[in-house]
């Protein structure tokens, strides 16, 4: 099944996406491919604002009916906001993974890390393997 991979985002191999905003922050979520593989989302344990994470550190638990999975910080920084909508509507991660289903916003402590992430073509190639 083909999943949606917007070209304006960057991706980590562990299936998180990153959208860098003008003010040095980034919005983070999980990809369409990831949500489809995990199945119906029933609970998301989000990081607390104020917590700092290193790139690659587990910071969110997404629980589908099937299983609990970690989502990792795709970039280092301090969490400035978690998506409160997911508390009552975790299914937004399934229905709108790149929109209302975002997980958290993070203040980039090392913006150059974004360059290490995959672009849409590289992420698409990863899924074909």
């Amino acid at each position, binding site marked *: 099944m083909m999943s949606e991979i917007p070209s304006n985002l960057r991706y980590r191999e562990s299936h998180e996406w990153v959208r860098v905003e003008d003010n040095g922050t980034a919005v983070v979520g999980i990809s369409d491919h990831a949500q489809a593989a995990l*199945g*119906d989302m*029933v*609970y998301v*344990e989000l990081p607390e604002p104020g917590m700092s994470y290193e790139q690659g550190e587990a910071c969110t*638990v997404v*629980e589908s*009916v*099937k*299983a*609990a999975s970690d989502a990792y910080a795709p970039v280092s920084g301090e969490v400035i906001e978690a998506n409160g909508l997911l*508390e009552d509507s975790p299914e937004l991660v*399934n229905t709108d993974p790149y929109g209302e289903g975002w997980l958290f916003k993070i203040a980039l402590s090392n913006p150059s890390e974004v360059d290490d992430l995959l672009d849409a073509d590289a992420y698409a190639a990863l899924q074909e393997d």
Partner: protein
Amino acid sequence: MRKTPLHNAHLAAGARMVDFNGWEMPINYGSQIDEHHQVRSSAGMFDVSHMTVVDIRGPQTRAFLSRLLANDVAKLHVQGKALYSCMLNEDGGVIDDLIAYYMDDQWFRLVVNSTTRDKGLAWLERQGAEFSVAVTEHHELAIIAVQGPQAREKVHALMPGAVVSELDEMKPFNALFHGQTYIARTGYTGEDGYEIMLPAEEAEGLWNRLLEQGVTPCGLGARDTLRLEAGMHLYGQDMDESYTPLVSALAWTVGMKDEREFIGRAALEQQKVQGLPGKMLGLVLDGRGVLRPGQKVITPAGEGITTSGTFSPTMQRAIAYARVPWEAGETCEVEIRGKLLPARLVRPPFVRNGKVCEGIL
């Protein structure tokens, strides 16, 4: 990987296929939760052709099953009547759980788990030897479970009038033949419906006619959340050879009233005398989160562990089964990722016939 006769039908319906113990089976066809709700509110169908159908034949069939099964086949004297039972080892541990159908006095049909097929069949052969019974596995059968409040009327719409009149009269846990097709009013969802065993080559035709009737294809994912809500156990998670039925909330399936000498009885008698070390109850998480197998349960009477757990789509709450100390009451906590969360121990089922049971919420 092994494929069922409905493999192409699954792909056509957009199934996400997974490896289930060597069988390529549908886990869902898009949304497991939607499928779950369809079964609770109207009708869904499951391919369970991976289950093992075994016929036992011979003059001593009844005597054999009376020794083999913890439940008493003496309860079966009407043709087509079904009985749920565990098959125990000498230590009282559960080798498998199954449904036995009474066909006639020299013929019973057993439906056993696919995950335990090899050891189950080996046990049947070994124990059956002294009773000279013939044990025949039916590879040529497919099984479609149609479940939900509208399941029976959807099936009836596809059957000739004479069979429909019979099916209308047929009580739960009974079955009948319609030609080569064996229609049992049984299931694993807590809803009314049928499990239909039929020749493999006819399976896709029935599946497609049920689709036309508006029956929703459902995967193993929904099957698991439905059975959990319904208070039904899964072999390998909620029971296995290290526990007896008495500590697994399955005492109701053990026929010990008379002197019948079934395999494992002595061990169960001994366990009763010594006192049961624990019991199995349901668990409802108070707040947000999801229960999973293997989580630690802390009660004032000591620690326990969850055996199956999920998020209940009907209740919108996390539920589980747990092995807990015999003295455990209602109050407990569950450890999830290092945090202790308040929960309640309850008596399953959680949901029956579309409704949350009394005392659960």
